[in-house]
């Protein structure tokens, strides 16, 4: 038998557990169970899904509010441009009519 085989045999030799081994394992199991019960509140899938849904809802509402605001800004700008265009068009036509009227008066 080689020295390596001797070492392996020695290392893998069957050993009886200590007398309090069972008690220690049971105590640790009980502690782990208690800890998991405490964490359940935050780690439960229902809460995770709820939080995710709330985040998505918040993003949707935020996006919708932003889009509405953008639409309003563009609409008001378009309205201002339209009124300006109508003002210029109307004024120019009035000026032309006025000039025609004046020239007719000059002719008479």
């Amino acid at each position, binding site marked *: 038998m080689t020295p390596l085989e001797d070492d392996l045999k020695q290392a893998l030799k069957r050993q009886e557990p200590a007398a309090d081994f069972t008690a220690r394992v049971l105590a640790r199991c009980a502690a782990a169970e208690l800890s998991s019960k405490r964490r359940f509140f935050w780690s439960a899938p229902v809460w995770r899904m709820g939080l995710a849904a709330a985040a998505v809802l918040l993003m949707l509402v935020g996006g919708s509010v932003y889009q509405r605001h953008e*639409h*309003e800004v*563009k*609409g*008001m700008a*378009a*309205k201002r*441009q*339209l*009124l*300006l*265009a*109508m*003002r*210029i*068009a*109307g*004024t*120019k*036509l*009035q*000026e*032309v*009519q*006025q*000039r*025609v*009227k*004046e*020239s*007719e008066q*000059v*002719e008479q």
Partner: protein
Amino acid sequence: MKRSLLKLAIVAIAVAPVWAADDFKLPMDLEKLAERATESVDVTLDQSTLALASGFLSKDDPEEAQVKKMIGKLKGIYVRSFEFDKEGQYPMSDVQAMRAQLKGANWSRIVGVKSIKGENAEVYLLKNGDQIGGIVVLDAEPKELTIVHIDGSISPEELSRLGGHLGIPEMGKTKKKTKGDSATPQAKDEDEQRMEKEQ
């Protein structure tokens, strides 16, 4: 089959310029004038922007309600206006190019006023049968150039009715810009001129 398609394509190509002849396009070079102008206005409202603006016009405000009703039939409004501190700041070729576009069969010059001070104001109407398909107001003064193109069904009377509203002066209260000028009236309907020629 191939021959008939070919004939159709030839007819389409031949007819296309006739349709396009009624399209009025503002010259691209016009935008460059803004650099030389002391004041410039550039308004481009296509059909979708008009629809958007219409949604923001109040039904309760009589002025806005009138505009809302008016723009319902429009395809676009385009305004370019430039004011200069010196004379001769814009090329007459631009004005002539626009006038050339307005010589199409369906366009008719309803008003033309020319003064010795070099103020030229013209109003053109696009006729689609009995309907008016658009208006172009071309006002070329020594220090000012204004082009208004209203694409769609609208009459000058409708626009004139806005006088006294939206900051548009009432008829007869317009600032006399031509005071001291001996303006030459050229207010003739081109259709009448054509009829006279035919006779």
